[in-house]
């Protein structure tokens, strides 16, 4: 290898040297000759940087939105009026989901027609109100807000703080379904349940048709009148 290297180097050195020097002389007048190769390289650089920035923007947006929403949530708890986290947002905070065993909490938002999943778990429009008979469905991205869903185990408690009080649910099971055959009928009149939905497999990197559904059922207790505690 090193032999070959040396010989090649020598070959280049001996044969190319004068021409190389001439090229160097020309370069100041025309620093970057726009060959297809360098153009492509530049395009790759710019596109790569843009894509990377766009990619990083997603988790950043997810985090910042949560911070902005928490002040809107505080406002809503103190005044009782739903508040928008920022003036042009088309949703308001809907509930705070707390996972005591995982030391996680996240603010869910109302299902706006747009891209609300980017900002937090979304309480889907077809849902019942959490705690009412039927199913309340929260969906979130597996790689941002629901990244910790893989750690939630059977029997874990999930608290759902609503402006009118807090309700506690216990995880009863999970299932994997196709997105278009979920089997979820939100207004089925059954026991009050929540379903947390994210993409399956949990560690996959590409979009797919399967969804992970984590089921939790209401723990029956008198509705707590106190304001929700913080985690």
């Amino acid at each position, binding site marked *: 290898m090193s032999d070959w290297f040396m010989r*090649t180097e020598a070959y280049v050195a001996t044969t190319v040297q004068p021409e190389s020097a001439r*090229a160097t002389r020309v370069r100041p007048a025309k620093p970057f000759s726009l060959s297809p190769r360098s153009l492509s390289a530049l395009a790759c650089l710019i596109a790569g940087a843009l894509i990377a920035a766009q990619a990083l923007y997603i988790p950043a947006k997810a985090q910042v939105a949560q911070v902005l929403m928490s002040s809107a949530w505080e406002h809503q708890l103190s005044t009782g009026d739903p508040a928008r986290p920022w003036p042009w947002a088309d949703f308001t905070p809907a509930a705070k989901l707390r996972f005591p065993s995982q030391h996680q909490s996240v603010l869910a938002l109302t299902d706006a027609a747009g891209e609300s999943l980017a900002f937090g778990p979304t309480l889907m429009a077809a849902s019942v109100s959490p705690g009412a008979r039927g199913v309340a469905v929260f969906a979130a991205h597996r790689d941002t807000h629901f990244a910790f869903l893989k750690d939630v185990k059977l029997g874990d408690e999930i608290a759902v703080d609503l402006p009118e009080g807090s309700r506690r649910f216990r995880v009863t099971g999970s299932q994997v379904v196709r997105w278009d055959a979920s089997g979820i009928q939100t207004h089925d009149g059954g026991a009050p349940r929540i379903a947390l939905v994210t993409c399956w497999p949990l560690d996959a990197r590409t979009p797919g048709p399967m969804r992970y559904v984590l089921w939790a059922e209401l723990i029956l207790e008198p509705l707590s009148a106190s304001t929700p505690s913080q985690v």
Partner: protein
Amino acid sequence: MEQMITLTTYGLRTRPALAGALLAATCLVPAAYAQQARDGTVSKAEVSSGSLLLQSSTPGRYIEAPLVAADVKMDIAGPIIRTKLTQRFTNPTQQWVEGVYAFPLPEGAAVDRLKIIIGDRFIEGDIKERQQARVLYEQAAASGQRAGLVEEERPNLFTASMANIGPGETVAIQIEFQDKARLDNGVWSTRFPLVIAPRYSPKPTFGLTADRTGRALSVTDPVPDRDRITPPVLHPAHEPGGVEGLRLPVNFDISLKAGVPIADISSQTHGLVVERTDENTAQIHLKDGEVPADRDFVLSWTPQPATAPTASIFREQHNGEDYLLAVVNPPAIKTTAQRRDRETIFVIDNSGSMSGDSMDQAKRGLLLALDRLAPTDEFNIIRFDDTMELVFQTAAPANAQNLARARRFVSNLEANGGTEMLPALQAALVDNDRKNTEEVRQVVFITDGAIGNEDQLFAAIHDGLGRSRLFTVGIGSAPNAYFMANAARQGRGAFTFMDDVTKVAEQSAKLFAALENPVMTDLEVKLPAGTADAYPAPLPDLYAGEPVSMVMRAKDVTGDLTFSGKLNGKSWTMTLPVSEAAQSSGVAQLWARAKIANFEESRYSGMTMEQVDAGVLKTALDFHLVSRLTSLVAVDKTPARPAGEKLDTRQIASMLPKGWDFGAVFGPAAETRALRFDQLPDGVMQKIHARATQEKPKAEQDLALPGTASGWEMMLAFGLSLFVFGAALLRRGRSAIGLRGQALPASVGSMRATSACNRVS
């Protein structure tokens, strides 16, 4: 890494065009992160303004709603109505589509004309046998020609298909039909349905007929065409509104020529703008302009009392023959006879489709009817959904105690579940005292008629009627008028509609008049010389306030038409000279439509299906009418869709009828309630297993879950690799620039690149 770069740079130099293309393709990959419209959805940014968007199951993605705007142009001349219905299909998508729209029409509509309108051209449709029309249409659709097809599913339910509507295009289907206004207690009216209420079709296993042996169980499907009569229904929450406009807007333009001075024009369903042109005529529009297609439209007009004629006769010549229409209003005869005792069986539908306003109307109407029972009467109440229940084992005396129990039962009714109407109907017709003609036996059937097995029910009524008389009460904003009218005809009773919760007392008055006043007997008509084929045959029983309406065919007709009958022992006669008949177009179509209806109902009275079919087919083809066996089809000769473009079929979803509860109709089966068939007075139906498994009408399925992967990690990895690759290439590129101009033998090119690469690394 070393090898890869070597190869790439080598490739770059020798085939720059190819490599450039490859690179460009690579840079386009991020576009793959934007959701692709493979599922036919779009985002708000992707559509031009003016299209209607429906929220899809994926947040931020929408389905472009095909629009069907309907223009209804009615010309009312006396009792004869000519309607032109134009449905404009707008295709908002980027694909070529076929629009399929199931829509209702008045149950007596004789559809005789179809046009498809493309820009300023139109193509006239032709009547064909149903199967042949379908083949012609499918062939045209496949070869890219524009084509329109109108098929009858029920006498009041049709399907329009329009093939090859280009991206962004609007194409119209125009149908014309003949109908007649209804006269009731001196008020003329017409009911124009705008929405097909979601219908319940019993499962094939329920195709049983309670035979006299009590054991007949057939496995035939009572509704073989269930798919064609249950269009998908859009949840009202997804229905666009406000500035977005309506998805299925309807516009009315009505010209009324009553032929007599009009005292009043009104609509109980919609606000009207009435322009009176003179005392006999008016132009009528809707106050709101365009209205949603979610409920029936009812127009009523009352002639000035002094001028209201008691009889009128119309005449049309068609292919050398005369067709006559006579409408006769019998004189109101004061009855002084003693009220006869009666046995009244009330049947109330509490299935899911009745949920909401309809249930309230039905309950209030029934409670009012209970108030009118005399202590000497007997009564019973049957409620049904997919189960049924009787209040009393057999009809019970209407004493205070029984009435109180019945009222409690009615007040507690809740609407839920499917609509298994047949067992309830059969239970109501079970008569323990069939020979007793002194007593009147009446069955009052309170329902919205949202069922698909009409034929089965009509047959059951025909077979089981005996001395009973069946009165139907159509409830809600979009009752099945065909069922109401035809069940009442088979049951020799009368039908009324009750569709306004605030006017239950007023609307039920008509029903009570029919129930409590004696029926006209010995009704006879003497046809003038030369006439034949008079319909309806036999003449229906005539209740208080009802007119006789009759169509007939004649050749060289002269003389008089004489109606006679007896009411409470008093006889009356009315004579109409044919020479006084007013010329009017459309009478021939009305006659043909009545003849077809007559063939259709003669299947219950012994005519074989082959004979029925032959009669229907011949009449429909002769008179250019759409029927169960004939369709109108129009095909444009020149192909419109370029070869290679696909045709995408979109079924237009119906609206949910106003006042309906979506969840109650389409939701999961109600809690199973015990059936009590063993309580039936007669063992006939003990074998019936009508514990219904829900055969739900098509609706939204399970909740669809959104995409829940932002994919940022993958995107970041891709971006970074692209960046690194670009950087490497640039370094490489600079070295290469340094080498430019070197006159090297081509054979060492790869060697040179390799060396440079090594230097980089």
